[in-house]
């Protein structure tokens, strides 16, 4: 399950729904696994009464991790050489996210991708790029 340069064209896309109706439980799972226990992600009382947000919200790195799953499913395991995103909007419980990679360039055994993850309202929550080795 690896990509072949000869079968890739600029403009090709790969999209996956990486989470549907994000639960607070999944955010808690991410806090526990990553070790980032910032209460704005898991503690509704603190987040609404002290931090001033409408509810807890996802770690940016959870959004990036979800987006990374789309990428590794597309390019294959152990194939990424670069991956970066800007967190352009917050992700809240209940959000549904679709992540898309678009081929920007193919050369010398390497594919360059643009990466975009959007929520159910079409708002981009992460935007970036990636590179991967291809056969």
């Amino acid at each position, binding site marked *: 399950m690896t990509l072949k340069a000869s079968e890739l064209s600029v403009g090709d896309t790969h999209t996956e729904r990486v989470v549907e109706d994000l639960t607070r439980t999944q955010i808690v799972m991410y806090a526990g696994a990553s070790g980032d226990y910032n209460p704005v992600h*898991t503690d509704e009382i603190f987040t609404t009464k002290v931090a001033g947000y409408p509810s807890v919200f996802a770690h*940016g790195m959870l959004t990036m991790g979800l987006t990374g799953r789309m990428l*590794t499913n597309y390019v294959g395991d152990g194939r990424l050489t670069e991956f*970066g*995103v*800007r967190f352009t909007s917050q992700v809240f419980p209940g959000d549904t996210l679709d992540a898309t990679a678009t081929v920007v360039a193919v050369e010398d055994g390497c594919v360059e991708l643009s990466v975009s993850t959007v929520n159910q309202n079409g708002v981009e929550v992460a935007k970036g790029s990636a590179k991967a080795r291809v056969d």
Partner: protein
Amino acid sequence: MAVERFPIEASHIMMFARSVGDYNKIYYDADYAQDSEVGAIVAPPTFVQASAQFDPSYGLRPRPDGKGWMGSGSQPTSAVRAKPQQETTPQKEKASSEGSNRGGGGGGGVLHAEQRYEYHRHPKVGDVLTTTSRPGKTWERQGRRSGKLVFSESVTEYRDQNGELVVTATSVGVRTERAVDQS
């Protein structure tokens, strides 16, 4: 924030992969992984972020005595808070910087703005990584929804047991003047 010993462990990778909804066998099935191109259970692309677990002074984890933590217990925050001050800018700035490593994310907290990884190879089970971090660029701009924004970059190198560079991670944090307006 240096981590002297970040052992790459199978159960940690399994839990992390689950937390990002990734049930790919490469993250938990050693037999499957052995027969794959990579030849071992490897870390998902954003896994090195979990090196925080091995940072003894990581600020976003409650201390053993629970003191100073921002989260709620019987009250909305268990942190000992200074008496309310007049909302003058210098004092707000001071409060912000004191809270910067202890989470919060709200008025004057630090949010994660950007993250970039360069993979020299992918960490695999059995590796023991060491990290070193250095500050990168800093810059400011006026935000539309959260006041003045101060961005600062931190570059972390993850090296393996042989001193070889495995992952270079660049993180950009942003300090907001107030909570991000959701309207």
